């Protein structure tokens, strides 16, 4: 029989995690489906579970001059309706699931789930977000690209939990989020794309692009981006074939029930091209 514990304070959750092997459940909207059993039966977790969604002290969105801070139990719908959450993230959340799921699901949960098709991740990679991991005796901050190590693999020790997502504030001249899915709501992405660019005096000051569901993790290539920073916008557009070539070998999607490799790859390249040419 697995043990379940409902934590209502951070202290309680961290102590519980320190006392044995526990699975952390926030909103539970993904965990529940991954571990579902028959109708009428409890969710079939194989490990002990610590429920954290009722920890009110982690339900917040704060900001200072440099960053926005989102607590681990902040619901997606709260972020969507918040004034100070980054606009890119809000645009993404708007297309995630439906209102019923968004009222219980959390951003931290979407990160910990580490699905290659996790929509929020694409935005968090472009925004250079960091994850705060806490245990009873330690707090560390990890960049999202290091935190997510592979399909459903994250850099989280068994006595740690995510307590906060930190997002640096940044002004882009233009950004685009494109989710390719059969319908606007209630759909898992075939692939997703975020492009963001800052242009000053006709010069590319910053360029960031990330793709979801075309690789094991979100694909963002900072080395490719940096090659084009400093160019004029005209030069950037003239280089479109080179940019496509740069990304071509890194986009390695799979076939699954939602889409196939050929489609995913072609649409990914089309989205990059479209973003650059309309910048």
């Amino acid at each position: 029989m697995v043990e379940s514990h409902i934590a209502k304070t951070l202290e309680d959750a961290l102590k519980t995690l320190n006392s044995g092997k526990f699975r952390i459940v926030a909103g539970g909207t993904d965990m529940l489906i991954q571990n579902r059993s028959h109708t009428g039966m409890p969710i079939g977790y194989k490990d002990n579970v610590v429920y954290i969604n009722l920890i009110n002290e982690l339900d917040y969105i704060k900001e200072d001059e440099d960053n926005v801070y989102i607590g681990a139990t902040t619901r997606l719908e709260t972020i969507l309706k918040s004034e100070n959450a980054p606009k890119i993230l809000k645009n993404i959340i708007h297309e995630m699931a439906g209102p019923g799921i968004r009222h219980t699901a959390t951003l931290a949960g979407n990160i910990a789930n580490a699905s290659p098709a996790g929509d929020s991740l694409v935005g968090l990679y472009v925004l250079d977000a960091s994850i705060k991991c806490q245990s009873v005796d330690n707090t560390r901050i990890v960049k999202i690209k290091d935190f997510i190590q592979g399909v459903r693999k994250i850099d989280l020790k068994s006595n740690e939990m995510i307590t906060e997502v930190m997002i640096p504030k940044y002004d882009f001249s233009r950004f685009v989020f494109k989710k390719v899915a059969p319908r606007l709501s209630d759909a898992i992405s075939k692939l997703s794309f975020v492009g963001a660019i800052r242009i000053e005096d006709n010069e590319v000051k910053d360029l960031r692009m990330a793709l979801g569901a075309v690789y094991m993790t979100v694909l963002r290539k900072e080395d490719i981006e940096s090659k084009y920073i400093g160019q004029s916008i005209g030069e950037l557009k003239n280089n479109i074939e080179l940019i496509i070539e740069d990304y071509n070998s890194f986009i390695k999607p799979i076939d699954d029930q939602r889409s196939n490799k050929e489609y995913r790859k072609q649409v990914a390249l089309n989205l990059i091209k479209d973003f650059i040419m309309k910048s």
Partner: protein
Amino acid sequence: MTEIKFKLNGKEQTLNTDPNRRLLDVLREDFKLTGSKEGCGEGECGACSVLLNKQIVNSCSVPLANVDGQDIVTIEGFSKTKEYQVIKDSFATAGGVQCGFCTPGMIIATQSLLNTKPRPNDYEIKIGLSGNLCRCTGYNLIIKSVKLAAKDGDGLW
């Protein structure tokens, strides 16, 4: 076994049960509140919608642990309110009901929407109902029903 306390349709309830059970199963089996339906069982169809602290959630995707100390209203509890009367009448008048399977969820979604946006435009209605699937009406009549409810019940929300 864990003791879970929550308010259900205005009444305090205490259960000694497995917190890993789904809220939907507890509502249907322990309380015989069968207005919330299981459609897809994975949070996509909205047939199991209930109000958690006045906001719509998919009860098939809520572990019972997450409602400890919270306030749940199902379609049965909601049907005793003035807001329900207005929404019910508008769905009947505008033809927002055909087979009826999605209707409890649609009504819960309408209430959750009007609670935050008492005078929604068409787009806001579509977003508000976007987690609820209907295979009969083609949605236009449901959107019409919600608009009528907002008009007839102006001031209630």
